[in-house]
């Protein structure tokens, strides 16, 4: 076993895919000579040549659309959007073509491409470098949306994404790039579409993914140590497809559920997960499903990001509020009078 960072695991996945399949190409801004601003593509151009890993002009719609065209010729492009917010110029290409081409053509024209998106915050980055954009993609039928939380998953899920016949939006939590594991590569973890129980527990299910996985595990530890709550942590890994089976089985077992996601909370993935669990486990639930999400604000400046990011305390507070009241968050929302005034 050797120590492998998340970033190294991704790099290795790209290498092994390039080696195994001559149709795989890696392209994007600065992915060539520089090896990417996060060095995820480090050395690929050197080792596989300009033809296999290359820089493009600076235009994200162009990158996405160019990859569509290459995929039409049988290539398997892996494109990088340098940061989450810089994927937005490509939104039309992603939503109107990449997500829909297979369906449009009755499966005759498939687009086996991967869109790598370094996403979310916690790295002290300035505006536009820390957006959580998975909700936009997850709301778009035709895309798979995958987000690893461990180096082993980073490797295995990326390899599977590249091999997939369907387009995959591969969301890489930037904050985890430097996280480590003892790991021998190649490694194969559970397939896309499956969630993973990262910690077994009996009192409450904590559902999370990507950048918040460490927070969840930490919170579970603290909860066990300080509050004697036995928290089961489930890592979704794949947002689309969604693993209802594993998730619902856990909640039916524990009877309580908190959904933890870093993205702004309103109308995103956390809402979906909470709604699904509430729909499907209604009679198993001893308390409402609560969410711990990022605030509904633009990603804050570095010196204030700690107030935005769900932290261990916020998770523990929320678990603590899995009471049996009808209005679980009144503690913070103030009394009814206050809420009326807010209107």
């Amino acid at each position, binding site marked *: 076993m050797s120590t492998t960072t998340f970033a190294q695991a991704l790099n290795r996945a790209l290498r092994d895919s390039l080696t195994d399949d001559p149709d795989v190409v890696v392209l994007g801004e600065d992915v060539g000579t520089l090896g990417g601003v996060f060095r995820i593509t480090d050395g690929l151009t050197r080792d596989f040549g300009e033809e296999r890993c290359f820089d493009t002009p600076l235009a994200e719609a162009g990158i996405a*659309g160019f990859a569509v065209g290459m995929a*039409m010729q049988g290539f398997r492009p892996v494109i990088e959007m340098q940061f989450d917010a810089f994927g937005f110029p490509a939104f039309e290409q992603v939503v109107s073509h990449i997500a829909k081409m297979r369906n449009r053509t*009755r*499966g005759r024209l498939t687009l086996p491409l991967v869109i790598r998106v370094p996403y979310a915050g916690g790295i002290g980055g300035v505006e536009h470098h820390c957006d959580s954009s998975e909700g936009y993609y997850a709301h778009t039928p035709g895309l798979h949306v995958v987000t690893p939380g461990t180096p082993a998953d980073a490797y295995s899920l990326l390899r599977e994404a590249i091999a*997939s016949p369907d387009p995959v939006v591969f969301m890489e939590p930037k904050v985890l790039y430097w996280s480590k594991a003892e790991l021998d590569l190649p490694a194969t973890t559970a397939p896309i579409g499956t969630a993973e129980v990262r910690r077994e527990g009996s009192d409450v299910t904590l559902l999370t993914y990507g950048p918040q996985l460490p927070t969840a595990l930490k919170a579970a530890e603290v909860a066990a140590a300080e509050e004697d709550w036995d928290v089961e942590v489930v890592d979704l890994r794949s947002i689309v497809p969604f693993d209802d089976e594993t998730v619902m089985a856990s909640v039916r077992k524990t009877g309580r559920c908190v959904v933890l996601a870093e993205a702004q909370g309103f109308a995103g993935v956390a809402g979906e997960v909470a709604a699904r669990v509430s729909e499907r486990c209604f009679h198993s639930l001893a308390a409402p499903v609560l969410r711990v999400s990022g605030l509904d604000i633009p990603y804050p400046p570095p010196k204030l990001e700690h107030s935005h990011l769900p932290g261990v305390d916020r998770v523990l507070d929320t678990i603590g509020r899995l009471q049996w009241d009808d209005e679980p968050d009144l503690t913070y929302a103030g009394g009814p009078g206050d809420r009326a005034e807010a209107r």
Partner: protein
Amino acid sequence: MTDVQHLLPCPEPVRFMDEAGTLVPGGPGELATERGYALPSDDDLLAVWRAMVLGRRFDSQATALTKQGRLAVYPSSRGQDACQVAPVLTLAEQDWFFPTYRDSMALVARGIDPVEVLTLLRGDWHCGYDPVATRTAPQCTPLATQSVHAAGAAYGMKRRGNGGVALCYIGDGATSEGDFHEALNFAAVFEAPAVFLVQNNGYAISVPLSKQSKAPALSYKGVGYGIRSEQVDGNDPAAVLAVTRAAMEHARAGDGPFLIEAHTYRLEAHTNADDATRYRTKEEVAQWQGRDPIVRLQRYLLDRGALDQARVDEVTAEGEALAADLRARMNLEPEVRPSELFEHVYSTPTPQLREQAHMVAAEEAQVMHG
């Protein structure tokens, strides 16, 4: 000192014949020859003429089908016939074609079954033909987005070394979209064998070119990407054929992309749902009616004796047969299956889609039996 002359288009649209089908001596015609465009052979022009006649018959039949409620909507390309068919006839086996929503006539010229061409507009599915088998991308509705695909596909073909070229159509209005810019740039940077043909028909729905661009001509955009460019009289089938052929050869020879602007006009409204009298005059339309590419080429060929009335009647009959067949087949109510909605979204339906498919199937069963 940078010299850019070789990248700039002809200062007037390349043209071989005037509106009466008479060869233009000197002037743009001469310029065309200077720039290396050869007047196409009679055989080639006969092929273009036939494809235009059939294309237009298809087009008018499609418009008629909207009146009978057989098509949700139809954007006619009547008047743009030369642009629709001549470039398509220059395509080789391995080449890919990237059409827009307006280019149905071009698809027919490409040999795609007219019923499959109209699937999108009949509404039984999105794309009716097989893009891989026909080497033709689905007709593209989001404007200019297909141009980037064309650049990528062209580069892909270059990488495959199969000698293929991507021919991409785009409207004058769509050149304003960022994607067009990115496409030209990517094609140039990767020296992709792509030919971009702007059908400048003077309008984007109701918006005239004067509100779309202040460029001396849209073909002057090429130099900003280092792309060779040309402008052509889009209603002169000979000029369109000659220039496109040169462009395709340029691309195929590995000399990079090529941009063509073809000046033309759509004689019908934007679609059958549009009211063109709101934004253009009868006089303007009448003027362009006098520049009809079919009339022009037919007269030229008749004058040369390359065509006779018997052949005209023959091809007219061919057109009628095409229209009759199209009518007959479009009058059949297409079979649609709700279950198909779930079959192509992913290679394997997600559990979520399977649940939804079950729901729809159960509803259908209820309707059937209940």
